[in-house]
């Protein structure tokens, strides 16, 4: 059931004007069962380290298997178990039919796109994990950096390191953006740790982990937007607007600054009488209006 027509785009930093195409990569590590399926013949051959995989050949991994491919520009694609993917013949796209991939493109190299069925995801200069059900379900986890994920219907959401967003099969909208424990994820991820050498972006990921852990240790997490209390306090404080003269109740204000008395009625005040209907407040001083 190919209902996965989501176009999820993760954009970070600036797009270099000219980027080398990402149409091939070399196996730099293989764990267990990894096959390369020739697009022309559909014949599957076991993959091997140093073997170059070119578009549009498929890479297919078996259970508990994984592989790492490195492009000439050092863009790294790590492939999880039970995954089927290929490079697109043009541009910098990876076609993820199902399974999971970790994608890291060094800053300034042009990033890349991760497609799922008829859809795609793109990333520039950051590290993320994308997993796909093959039936329209889609998940994006950001390991470091920031980015915005956009659906083809125009809906978008912003992610920072340690955040996750997903689209369930047969749905056309995001689920909630969730903050996840990045340290637990990184420590337990085969895509991060299941290879003989570390990711080049691991120091950046560790920085994100440490930052999140600091906030957890303090008992709170940093808000990316404006704290709610910032505006609450000044917009309506104890039942009154807090800007301008309305800072104080208008009648209380007039206890201090009463309306003026006309000059021709000052004489009454001097005789200890009040002009009819005159409300001088309680301050004991009133302004005399101009003639």
């Amino acid at each position, binding site marked *: 059931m190919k209902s996965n027509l989501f176009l999820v785009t993760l954009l970070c930093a600036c797009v270099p004007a000219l980027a080398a195409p990402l149409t091939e990569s070399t196996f730099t590590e293989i764990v267990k069962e990894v096959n390369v399926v020739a697009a022309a013949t559909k014949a599957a051959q076991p993959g091997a380290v140093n073997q170059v995989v070119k578009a549009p050949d498929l890479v297919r991994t078996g259970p508990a298997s994984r592989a790492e491919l490195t492009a000439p520009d050092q863009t790294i694609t790590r492939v999880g178990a039970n995954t089927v993917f290929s490079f697109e013949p043009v541009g910098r796209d990876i076609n993820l039919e199902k399974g999971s991939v970790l994608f890291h493109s060094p800053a300034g190299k042009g990033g890349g796109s991760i497609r799922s069925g008829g859809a795609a995801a793109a990333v520039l200069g950051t590290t993320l994990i994308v997993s796909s059900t093959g039936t329209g379900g889609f998940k994006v986890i950001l390991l470091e950096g920031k980015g915005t994920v956009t659906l083809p219907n125009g809906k978008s959401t912003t992610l920072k390191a340690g955040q996750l967003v997903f689209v369930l099969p047969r749905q056309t909208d995001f689920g909630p953006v969730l903050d996840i424990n990045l340290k637990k994820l990184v420590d337990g991820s085969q895509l991060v740790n299941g290879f003989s050498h570390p990711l080049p972006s691991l120091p950046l990921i560790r920085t994100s982990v440490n930052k999140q852990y600091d906030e957890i240790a303090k008992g*709170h*997490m940093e808000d990316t937007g404006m704290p709610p209390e910032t*505006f609450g306090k000044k917009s309506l404080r104890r039942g009154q607007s807090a800007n301008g003269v309305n800072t104080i109740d208008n009648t209380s204000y007039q*206890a201090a600054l009463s309306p003026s008395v006309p000059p021709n009625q000052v004489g009454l*005040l001097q005789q200890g009488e009040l002009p009819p209907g005159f409300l001088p407040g*309680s301050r004991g001083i009133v302004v005399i209006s101009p003639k």
Partner: protein
Amino acid sequence: MKKFASILLGSFTLLAFDKTNAQIPDAAQQVDNSQQRRQRAEDAGVYLDGSSAPELYPDETSDVGPQTVLKTKPRHHLFEAMADVQYMYTDNMFLTENHHQKADLLVSTVEFALAPTPYDFAGGTLAPNIGYEHQWFDFGLADKDRVNVFQFGAGPFPPGTVKSEHLNIFDFNSQTIFTGLRWTRGNWSADIGFDFRRLLSTSDYREFYKEYVPRWGLQRGFAFGDRAALTVGYAGDYRFADPKTLTVLLGGGSITNQVNPDMRDRTDHTLFVTYNQVLCSHAVLQPYYQIKYTRFVDSAFGTRNDLLSSAGLALYWTVCRNCDVRAFVDYNARFSNNKSASEYRQFDGGLGLNVIFRF
């Protein structure tokens, strides 16, 4: 024209159709991006602290890694200290119907409160507070205008004099002890509270007015996407007011003049609507409209009902977590069914700075 009923009807009609307005605490909460996301997460219910994000397919976690959801917790605090200053221009300092006096006005506020982090209560959160606030109202800092004033004296005759004075003779300050409770659940929140306030002249700190104010309110927020929200609400109070009674001595005798009967007990009922539009990660534009009905229950001049209609626009810029600046304009119009009360129009506009710390 003192056709109060028609004004009341017209104002409520305006309120019903005005889409560009007003004020409230939790409105900004609705428009904060991250808060919205978390709200959606909380609405989802199952994604609580320590739970896991849904696994899209079997064994996804083994490759991707465990996805334990974190719930953002607000930092717990007990106290709140706030300082605010706003400098503005007003075209009608004395709130008069005619002969408007222009002036610049500095309003300085400091506040300290015991305001602990809200507690979970009855399916929502309960936020108590108790504190003290002091405000200074200083007029004519830049304006050197002088005005003629009549100052009541305690006698003997003459009981008062006419003088030419600078506007700062009207400087006053306000001391308020307040306590309150706010219960919030979802987009609703309800308030009750009590204030004791007194006003003093700044020159000699002589009290001339005090009031005891039980108050209550209810409001609801409506979010429009991630960047806009509307809040509508009601706020009410009853003011047990105690103005100073001016005593005038004439000759050898004494006359106690009830010169300020309409400073006495009254009740206010305010309807407000505030719109918050997030312009960027640091700026919010906030138009508002509110209408306040005041019934004077102790008027010496017969029935008195006032209607104060206020509209304004404020632009808030968050400098950091603890500090923001703002620019604002407000327009007020008061109507009354009592001819003794001035029906005034008043405009003000200015800049403000707010600093707040919680610890």
